[in-house]
């Protein structure tokens, strides 16, 4: 963790959730910044420890190794599952937290190639949120299935951190920006504070450029395939996978950034848009949300 002081703001930087995380605060109080840093890091680590797929014996580990047995879950997990279920229903089964098993056969790096149809067919029975049986106190899914809270977890924790530090920042009129790897929430508590300039990453023919956006209030989340893709036989295979076909969604934008009131909503909308493939922009227009779309 690092706290650095800039001309008129402090920056807290740390790594969590496989992303660089930063919090910017318009403040001149180093003490307040330290308190905010502790809250943010504690909460992020708490969440990561509980839901990371890569940690031994945490809740996610127990769920993914339950082999068809019931696992006791708590309220927070239940709420996340309800939210994932909402996305699953709204996307007509395209957004699916059980789709992660496909990563066993799809490797989105340079010079990779698509797996065989038969290996895809083998995995498809293990996908489908509707196969999960869950209620307020338990979770149960068929053996061989996996869930991954990564698709909703980062946006959720950005919202949580913003929620937690607001009671500290708001009375002191400290505007802030919470930015975890491009998913961000900004809150402005003083009209004199300038907007934050945030660069939205874009890749055009291997050349990196950033488009700067200004944000002082609200949330932005981006989903895209700017880094994780491969070209094979003239086709671009990006890491947005369709859980029904088991194959990448073709023709999806390279990245979609959505502006919304909170980060979960922005992230949900951008993910849903990506899953629409070439209809992404129509989807976003119809939903009447503010967005940036790169093809």
């Amino acid at each position, binding site marked *: 963790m690092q706290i650095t002081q800039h001309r008129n703001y402090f920056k807290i930087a740390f790594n969590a959730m496989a992303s660089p995380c930063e919090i910017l605060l318009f403040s001149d109080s180093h003490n307040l910044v330290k308190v905010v840093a502790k*809250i943010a890091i*504690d*909460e992020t680590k*708490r969440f990561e420890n*509980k839901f990371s797929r890569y940690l031994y014996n945490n809740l996610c580990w127990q769920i993914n190794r339950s082999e068809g047995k019931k696992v006791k879950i*708590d*309220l*927070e997990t239940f709420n996340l599952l309800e939210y994932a279920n909402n996305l699953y229903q709204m996307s007509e089964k395209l957004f699916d937290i059980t789709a992660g098993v496909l990563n066993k056969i799809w490797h989105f790096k340079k010079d990779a190639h698509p797996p065989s149809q038969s290996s895809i067919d083998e995995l498809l029975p293990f996908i489908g949120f509707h196969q999960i049986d869950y209620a307020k106190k338990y979770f149960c899914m068929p053996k061989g299935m996996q869930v991954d809270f990564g698709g909703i977890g980062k946006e959720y924790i950005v919202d*949580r951190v913003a*929620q*937690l530090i*607001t*009671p*500290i920042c*708001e*009375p002191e009129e400290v505007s802030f920006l919470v930015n975890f790897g491009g998913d961000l929430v900004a809150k402005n508590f003083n009209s004199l504070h300038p907007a934050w300039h945030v660069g939205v990453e874009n890749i055009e023919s291997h050349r990196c450029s950033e488009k700067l956006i200004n944000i002082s209030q609200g949330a932005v989340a981006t989903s895209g395939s700017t880094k994780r893709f491969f070209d094979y036989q003239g086709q671009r295979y990006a890491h947005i996978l369709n859980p029904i076909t088991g194959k990448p969604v073709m023709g999806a934008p390279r990245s979609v950034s959505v502006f919304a009131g909170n980060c979960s909503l922005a992230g949900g909308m951008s993910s849903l848009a990506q899953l629409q493939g070439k209809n992404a922009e129509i989807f976003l227009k119809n939903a009447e949300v503010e967005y940036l779309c790169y093809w």
Partner: protein
Amino acid sequence: MRQIYWIISFLIILSFIGKANSQLLEPPNSEDPLNLSQYSGKTVYIDFWASWCIPCRKSFPWLNKIRTTYSNEELVIIGVNLDKERAKAEAFLKEYPAKFDIFYDPKGILAEKYQLQGMPSSILINPHGQIVSAHSGFFQSKVSLYENEIQASINNYREVIREK
């Protein structure tokens, strides 16, 4: 008729004894051994427990769950142990580990201060330092009530801050 007289005299004498005793409590102590003022801005849940108290065993897993549902900034949980011998409390904690802080009160000073009516007992203090609820006993059927009270205390504070 003789029997009726019997029952009545029996109950009257006994209920009189019950009354005589309830005035034994000393006046509440105004000290703050838990130093609660340091938690201003946070919801504080104080759980009074003892190793010999059977329902306390049920409340611990729930307290641990609540601990992981909320952040340290939103909610502080303090388990006040009332065992006379600390070793017994520690043996209990080995079997039922607590993910929250334990405060040892072998003399029952806090128990006296909050005039506990049963075991376990809980007290919920809102971020402004006011007691918003107190419960005697731990009932699975009331868990949603306990949780709603905690959530409400946290939510109310968020809104108050926002309105400012």
